[in-house]
């Protein structure tokens, strides 16, 4: 790439050849050791950056990056993704009525149904996400507001949550489990999908709620205090977070194993998003067999139990259906980035070539051959 050479310099020419000390052994001389290291003569690679030496690097980078970029771009484009906003800010939106409520503790759940069409069938496993916009889950005080050791099943922390959880540490002088703002603001909309057959029947699509959290989170990081059998007893003496309707041990009425701190929806929520616009994995639609697509083309209904108020912060709620590839979800950016960087490199390489032709030889050639 660069003009390079390993040259153990012959700077040592005049001295280093001399063998050892003058008066060997007789007097302990202070004479420094004549080693390559101490005399700073370590063999070294000394690249010199000039147009001529550098331009191959540019071309090589360009030539490598552009194909990679194209590959990534194509991969990303092959991913199918469907997104629907159900916030209901529009008057016309089916969820408009539900969205008007600000409160967390509406006794009456508000439901709405959102119709949508899939133009293309989704062939492989489909991941269903809920997406929030303008939700600063990365706010510093928000991020801190949790007690990991409580979530890890520490009984002491259960009864006496960390101070970080303030002001969601206690309610009614009982410790909150799980404490903190993150837990308190758990996303509690329920989304259900129905496929409308061409003949008009409404078939529910099976949504798998297991396996949406990281394995390590589910099995290591989050643990219920005590055994799972009697969660009610375990969480005795604690309060549910203020915004919650159900205590933590009743999060999933269907699956007993999915309750308490190891509820996967809860775990997913507790992994705070990096950016204010984010999505979180909600359910997985498993491919049934090879013959039929997971989600065939056609009309669908999404039934939403609308609990989560976002209007206070001008947030948006979305539901996203997406297949994934080896590189994750749909994101053409990386491919574009590779192509751009590769092109720029190539272009700069050309510029350097011109420079090299025009000026390079001047410095390098006449007397100092490069």
């Amino acid at each position, binding site marked *: 790439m660069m*003009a390079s*050479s390993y040259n153990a310099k012959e*700077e040592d020419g005049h001295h280093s050849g001399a*063998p050892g*000390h*003058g008066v060997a052994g007789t007097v302990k001389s*202070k*004479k*420094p050791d004549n080693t390559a290291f101490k005399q*700073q003569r*370590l063999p070294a690679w*000394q*690249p*010199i950056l000039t*147009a*001529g*030496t*550098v331009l191959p690097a540019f071309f090589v*980078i360009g030539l490598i*990056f552009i194909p990679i970029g194209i590959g*990534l771009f194509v991969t990303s484009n092959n991913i199918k993704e469907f997104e629907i906003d159900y916030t209901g800010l529009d008057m016309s939106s089916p969820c408009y009525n539900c969205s008007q409520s600000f409160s967390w503790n509406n006794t009456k759940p508000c439901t709405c149904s959102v119709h949508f069409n899939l133009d293309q069938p989704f062939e492989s496993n489909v991941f269903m996400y809920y997406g929030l916009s303008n*939700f600063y889950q*990365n*706010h*510093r005080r928000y*991020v801190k*507001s949790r007690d*990991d*050791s409580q979530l890890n099943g520490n009984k002491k922390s259960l009864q006496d949550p960390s*101070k*970080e959880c303030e*002001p969601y540490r206690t309610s009614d002088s009982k410790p909150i489990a799980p404490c903190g*703002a993150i837990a308190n603001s758990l996303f509690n909309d329920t989304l259900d999908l129905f496929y409308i057959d061409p003949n008009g029947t409404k078939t529910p699509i099976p949504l798998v709620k297991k396996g949406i959290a*990281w394995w390590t*989170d589910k099995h*290591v990081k989050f643990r219920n205090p005590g055994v799972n059998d009697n969660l009610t007893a375990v969480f005795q003496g604690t309060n549910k977070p203020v915004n919650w309707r159900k205590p933590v041990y009743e999060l999933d009425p269907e699956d007993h194993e999915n309750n308490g701190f190891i509820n996967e929806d809860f775990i997913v929520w507790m992994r705070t998003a*990096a*950016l*204010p616009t*984010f*999505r*979180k994995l909600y359910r997985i639609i498993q491919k049934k067999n090879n013959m039929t697509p997971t989600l065939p083309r056609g009309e669908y209904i999404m039934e939403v139990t609308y609990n989560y108020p976002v209007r*206070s*912060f001008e*947030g948006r709620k979305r539901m996203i259906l997406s297949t994934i590839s*080896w590189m*994750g*979800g749909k994101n053409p*950016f*990386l491919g574009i*980035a590779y192509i751009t*960087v590769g092109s720029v490199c190539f272009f700069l390489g050309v510029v*350097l070539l011109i420079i090299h032709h025009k000026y390079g030889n*001047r*410095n390098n050639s*006449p*007397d*100092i*051959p*490069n």
Partner: protein
Amino acid sequence: MALDVGEAEATKGSKVKKQRKKKNKKENKARTVHSNILYDNAKGEDNPNRHYANNKIKTTKYTFLSFLPKNLFEQFHRFANVYFVFIALLNFVPVVNAFQPELALAPVVFILSVTAIKDLWEDYRRHRSDKEINHMDCLVYSRPERRYVEKFWKEVRVGDFIRLRCNEILPADVLLLSSSDPDRLCHIETATLDGETNLKQRQVVRSFLDLDCDFDPSKYNSVIECEKPNNDLNRFRGYIVHRSGRRDGLYKDNLLLRGCTVRNTEEAVGIVIYAGHETKAMLNNNGPRYKRSKLERQMNVDVFWCVIILLIMCLLAAIGHGLWMFQYGDKRPVFDVLSPEGTDLSPALSAIYLFLTMIIVFQVLIPISLFVSIEIVKICQVFFIHQDVDLYDEETDSQLQCRALNITEDLGQMQYIFSDKTGTLTENKMVFRRCTVAGVEYSHDANARRLAMYQELDSEEEECVSHGGTLSRRDSVTSHQSAKVVLRSQSTKSHRRTGSRAEAKRASILSKHTAFSSPMEKDITPDPQLLDKVNEGGSQMDFMRFHSQPLSQLPSDLSDINDFFIALTICNTVVVSSPNQPRQKVRMRFELKSPVKTIEDFIKRFTPSRLTSSNSSSSSSLLAERSARRAVSGAMPSPSSESTLTKLDEGEGGEGGGGGEGPDANAFSPAPPSYDAKPAPIEEGELRYEAESPDEAALVYAARAYKCSLVGRLPDQVTVELPHLGKLSFELLHTLGFDATRKRMSVVVRHPLTNQITVYTKGADSVIMDLIRPPSTDDSKGKRQRKILYKTQNYLNLYAADGLRTLCIAKKTLTKEEYAAWLRRHLEAETALQGREELLFDSALRLETNLHLLGATGIEDRLQDGVPETIASLRKAGLQIWVLTGDKQETAVNIAYACKLLEPEEEIITLNADSQEACAALLEESLHYIQAKFLCPSPEQAAGAFQHDFPLFDLSPPPSSSSSAASSQAAPVLVHRLGLVIDGRTLAYALDCSLEDKFLAVARSCRSVLCCRSTPLQKSMVVQLVRNKLKVMTLAIGDGANDVSMIQVADVGVGISGQEGMQAVMASDFSLPRFQYLQKLLLVHGHWCYSRLANMILYFFYKNAMFVALVFWYQFYCGFSGSAMIDQWYLIFFNLMFSAFPQLVTGTLDKDVSSQTLQELPQLYMNGQNSEEYKPYMFWMNMIDAFYQSLICFFIPYFAYADSEVDLLTWGTPITTLALFTILLHLGVETKTWTWMNWLSIGFSVALFFAVSLCYNASCPSCYSPSNPYWTMQRLLGEPLFYLLCVVTPVAALLPRYFYRACQGSLFPSQVQVGRQLDRLPAETRRNILSLSGLAVGARYALRPSLFPFPGDSFPKDCGLGGQDGLGCSKSPLEERPLRPQGKAPSGLAGLRDNDLSLTDPFTLASTETDTLPYTKEAPRPAEHHRSPAKHAASDVDASLDLSRLSLSSWITSTPLLSPAESVQLTAPPAGGRQSATYRRDCEGRPGADHAVLEPGPRASHGPRDSLQTSLL
């Protein structure tokens, strides 16, 4: 030198007095010292000395217990530390904390502990050296044992009696009570204190003078009262009170100071007055002061900017947060957490809290680890400097020592060097070089060769052996020579550079130290011709003596030669001694005291019989001692028998002196019968000469080489051994000592052969030549005399041009009447009560007239090895060198010429003024002169200015970026080929406030400045003036105590540690064994240290800014809440661990240019002088680059993860990784030298990062409170996206920088880059290119093809290019090709370009070049060959000059894009053909100098003469 100190004392005096007055008020109690012997039994309580400090010294700062608090306290003096502690503490405040509080302490604790460990280590080293010193042995009188017993130094207490043996070092300040010396003197060498090597006499306290038997401490019962301990070396007052109540004064002459060495005195006894820390030496030894380097000052400015950037960033974030909060108004979103109290925070309050939080989060921007990294790097740099073999001096077994650890990089930025002369530039060893006698020059070629042998590096060992052999075989095997032989057998050939000298030095050490007696000074190889004549003269005289012929019949040249050597031998105050016996020493050190006291005495002494008796007595040291003591006690009673004899012979003596035959014959009878045989070889060999000044010794040694040896000196007679004549005793009638006004000394003796009264005078040529008797005009003798005078004067000029110290030797024969007449008045003068000095002076003047010139000598104050070369190369490096010396003007100028500080063709402005007004006028005048001459330079001068060897020197502050034409206008002052010589008195006026600006204006436009006769204070004032007014970096180098103040004032003080004292070394920041090492120290290590550190600092700023900016960008996406996507651990340890090692390695090891190239191209040093590695704009460029890179590193992951389920840390960790890669690769782009260490450190950093993060992420699922990165990294490593990001982001981030570097390397390479490219060449090619000098290289680089649109011509490359600067062809490899007329020369370049276009591979060309081009040693010849055409084609030469200038300027500026118009501005209009010839000659001289290694003798003697002649052309 002595005078120096005297003046210093005078100037200091007032200061000290003031201080003392203050002190006296407080504590006017004096110190009373009793003998410890009296109190020995009653230990402790009633010993009055118990309050005084004991002799144990402790220079450590800390004790075991006090270390922690004291060290912490000191560290908190550094503002940065306080700041970081503040931040760490801030983190404990819950409202604002960002990290786990304990974790936030880690960096501060780490930094503090690293510094503490460093301090501890340093303190431990001090402790060890203290211990070593404290455990040295000395003899202390012990009362119970009634003898002197060995004790450690630390056990010595005030009041103890100490016995000192020869060559022992004094453990404390001791009052001298007894000495084995017959005169009750003790000689000490104070080199460790003031750097003066000549022996100082100290006298036994007066009341103990008469003590004949040995001093018995147990009988001592006096009480000493003296002043309190103070640091004035030259002052001691007190008195001693004896039991009898008698009081005797004590003076500084009675005090032996700690650290001095006892010399020439077998034994001395004294009582300790001050001990340990109260000794004058220790009080004078204040530790090194803390210096802050220029780079660090510059860095601190940028740290300040960093603080501002930090505050701005925090402020922006705070405002943003306030606004963000504000936009939600009352609708509090669920993610905006209430305060712990559950209350709502107002946006404003929240913003304020956030501001503090941001300071914590962004703390990394202020590079906490920068300070500690810099210290580490500096320590490593110091280590490497220490380890440099080239800076190790075998002779003294000493190496360079960095005493100041924190200013290594300053070495690379020096602009002015202030150097002491004696002992720094010169070895302070006077060596006889050549002489002229009676108008005939004896060039002493063999001697020159011998000296060259000591000097030249590559002289073959064998040659050395043979020379040494001849020397030692000459007539005796002296002790040191035998030692030499032994050593030689031990030594291998590895010595080469220092070998022979080293042996010489060791030999002299082995043979017991005496001042001025290294073999180099002693073994003079006689000139064979002269030796023959001496022998001839001797034998003829011998013959005549036997045949009782008057000696006046001797041929005049032979008699002159004879007299010449006699004069050399006796016209001095040299004392003869032999090393192993008690000194046969003579009191005659107090001069101007004539032994002849009365007329009677005079007459009485004119008796031949006395000659006889004293002649025989001379061999008996007993008698000598006795007579010596007699002399001291002041009485002069001759043995009665002698005096009666004298009286009897009175009449005869009166006339006998005139005829002198009878008595003469008588006188000769006791002469050794075997005068022909070898004159007692062993005895002679062991003779040692101790002289007050080294040149005296040199002359005596020179005479000895001609077998005229001084064998004994008594107060009233000098014994000389002459060839064929044996020992002769000259009756010493008077010694008229040297004084600075007369600049000569004389002895009046009675010649034993002719019995005439003869005056031998020796002195500076300027005075002696005026005192020569004008030769009579008519007769042939007169003509001959005139001729001799004329010739001698010529030779003297030649010597002076050679840099030799010249002395003229003259003689005068007095008739008895004349003598009697003079003596009468002289005795009057001696006995005069008032104005004695003046009268004696006049008396001397009366005597020293009408002299007969015998000859002249040239003595070399030998320059240290490589001094001229060092000065030349330092000069090329753009350093201005000033020499500040206490020496007299003539000597200084001579040396300046010798060390090429002044060049013969240079004009010299000499400023000698007697008054302030005169000085002002002089300065004004010289300023006008300079302006008139140079500021609007006439064409010829401009051309001339460019003719010399150091082309670059003409532009003093070398321009940096703009074109040279522009910057040379901008540069306020040009340095001209002018030398300025100013003496101390004038300097005092010039340093006055009113004149200092003018003085500086004059001085800075001169190429060399020489300040003579300057006091230490003046030296420091000059340095201070230059430093403060010109705002330049100054380096002071010196070796003696008189340089201490200067060393302390300068930015960097360098002490020469070689043979002289430790005082300068103690005060210095660096100590070097020899001056020449300065070259490597500055040019190589200075450059390296500077460029390494500068680059490292810049990199640091970049790194931190880049890293912190990532977090800053994130604030826009987290509601400015102070949240960080980078885990706290990474944030805190990124600087300390992950990115720390590679930069340390690079900062320590990176070499931009190899040491060889740096030394061969001193111009590269200007890089540092102009601070080109670290300019203020570079900081901002780096900041911009940092922000760009962080944007890339932030937004590529941002978009890659936009709207995905990624969580905070899973997103932040890739960013951290990317940032790390980018930062490391950035370092890679900036690293110039990749050793395995670099690879290792980078690999290690990456590995460490992943290892730590993997462990950290796996360690605890519920800890690390604010963020919990459990299993993040592990998961990331399984994601392809992570790797894809890791590839594209660093590339995109580094693209601009890499591209810029490549363009810079091609379009406008800096000098350093050019140097690096030179490095890449095969050694052979490079050597050849470099030997063309920097000018040539510059020319080659800078020539724009566009400037020479000539059609391609297959002109030989080197020759064509060389032609550009008019000298290149001298080295042209293709000699057979005739040089084209220069007008076409540029076309060669164009042609070259064509040739080389095809050669893209860097190595093809280089290798073919070496293969095909026959570089030869006799390269200079073709230049000569081509000279005549050049002379004819003056215009062509002009063109070449023109080109060279152009190239020169572009070389300096390193700006390639010089328009032709600019070059015209600089172009010299046609220079005359003659001048061009001169130019060529100069150029040619250089290769000659390069080859002089092979034939040093001729060069040494002829080189300067050549230049002299050329300039006369």
